[in-house]
């Protein structure tokens, strides 16, 4: 996915992409599928966990994780929660409308190097958006991985992203999924109730620490507790991969906002190993 295609293009050049489809995932989160107008741009060549920046002149720019896998070309997908000015404007667009994109940015999950490993994928809330890219990658290259556990937490049944897709994937034996909601307000939730860490007992006895890599994405407070659980399982610190969200304006290490310690989330992250960032005090 190379955005600079012609003479004069630069780091902030965007490429127009057309909305092919959208679908509400939850009350405030929506799935978007795009196709670049410029046919020469191929929607691959990125890693799950990387992000792109969308631009709508007049509205602004905002950062979103790519939620489709590089194994599926010809389109690029996102999941967006409506929280403010940009996201509201995006939600007001229609199929066929144009959004300008630039990216991909950051460093994602190096899926190839995870080949042959067990994966524990822990997701909280919106964290499922970038992790969807990981899951679909696993689906498309299932033979490369060993056991794959997916622990997914959401506030309520209605807030759980991709629930049917995940269940279908589990039924096809691609992943072993465990779902949990903080609180079931419907009385009809067939799965676990409680924060995502309460799912760990379901997998502990099958985890082989040294050949497992954990991948986490979720709201800031989730990290502390999930990491505690993973450390209890003796997963090596450099095999705990986490994706961090920070405010960012440029995506290329210039605007300064995403600095944590000496690192720029947009360049060296958003995916970090726990080993790398464990000493950074303002991590969470």
């Amino acid at each position, binding site marked *: 996915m190379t955005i600079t295609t012609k003479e004069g293009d630069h780091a902030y050049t965007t490429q127009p992409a057309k909305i092919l489809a959208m679908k509400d995932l939850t009350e405030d989160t929506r799935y978007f599928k795009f196709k670049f107008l410029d046919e020469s741009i191929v929607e691959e060549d990125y890693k799950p966990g990387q992000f792109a920046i969308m631009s*709508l*002149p*007049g509205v*602004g720019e905002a950062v979103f994780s790519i939620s489709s896998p590089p194994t599926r070309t010809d389109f690029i997908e996102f999941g967006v929660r409506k929280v403010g*000015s940009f996201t509201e404007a995006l939600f*007001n667009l229609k199929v066929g409308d144009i959004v300008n994109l630039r990216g991909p940015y950051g460093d994602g999950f190096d899926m190839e190097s995870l080949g042959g490993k067990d994966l524990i994928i822990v997701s909280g809330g919106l964290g499922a958006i970038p992790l969807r890219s990981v899951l679909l990658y696993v689906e498309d290259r299932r033979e490369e991985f060993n056991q794959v556990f997916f622990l997914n937490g959401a506030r309520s049944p209605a807030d759980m992203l991709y629930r049917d897709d995940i269940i279908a994937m589990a039924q096809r034996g691609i992943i072993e999924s465990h779902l949990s909601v903080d609180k079931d307000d419907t009385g009809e939730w067939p799965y676990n109730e409680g924060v995502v860490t309460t799912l760990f007992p379901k997998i502990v006895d099958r985890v082989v620490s040294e050949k497992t890599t954990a991948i986490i994405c979720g709201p800031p407070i989730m990290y502390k507790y999930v990491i505690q659980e993973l450390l209890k399982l003796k997963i090596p610190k450099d095999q705990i991969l986490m994706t961090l969200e920070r405010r960012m304006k440029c995506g290329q290490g210039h605007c300064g906002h995403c600095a944590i310690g000496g690192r720029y989330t947009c360049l060296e992250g958003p995916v970090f190993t726990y080993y790398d960032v464990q000493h950074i005090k303002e991590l969470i």
Partner: protein
Amino acid sequence: MWKREKKPVVGVFGFSGCAGDQLAILHMEDELVDFFTSADIKFFHMAQSHQEVEHVDIALVEGSINTDKQLAELKEIRKKADIVVALGTCATHGGIQYLGDNEKEFEERMLLVYGKDGKIPEFSELVGNPIPAKPIHKFIEVDFSIPGCPIAKENFIPIYTKLISGLKPSKYPYPVCIECKFQGNDCFLLHGEYCLGPVTAGGCDACCPTFGVPCVGCFGAYEGANFESMIEKLIEIGLTEEDAKRKLMMFGGEATELALKGEK
């Protein structure tokens, strides 16, 4: 590309204040025609004949509330409007006439100004009964605040045009000092002169310090204001604590009052 869906209906309403924010709109000579054409201005009694309106998409409300009659009208406006914007320091903070809620002091002032034979006269229902001046958010829900005594066009236009385009303006509070340094000015406080820039919300392009006169704080308190440290600094340059607090309160309204009492 993003495009707005419709031209919204906008009303400009005024309560107690100097009408400076409405006038500031009329003083944007370069943008005036666009102002009247980019939205459907249905109500703006300072500039055009009176119109009755059933509904407005956006109400720009100027002034503080200080009679029960105004209060009733304000509530009417809230009912009619999808978005209410507090316009100017009177509406956002209470303005210079915000003097707290103390009923006894309020009566003393009424007596001082209107009193006859030791009594506050009765006012007719045409004008309503007086109450201590307060910002509008004390009575109704306010969606956006644009402070300034009066508002500055540099600050107003970007927020307003987002609103009439159906977008949410983003919020990023910073003090007058930021814009003061944008202009490359020196700092009064370093030369033993008072200036309220560090505790005052930015947006005016630091026009006063740029003219070589200190900021008197007319945009009200900056969200990140550190009043304690500011008072210490003012004392260090020779003001008494009382002087410092009085200056902070000139445009500070309730937010500053609470902060000074340590209640924020």
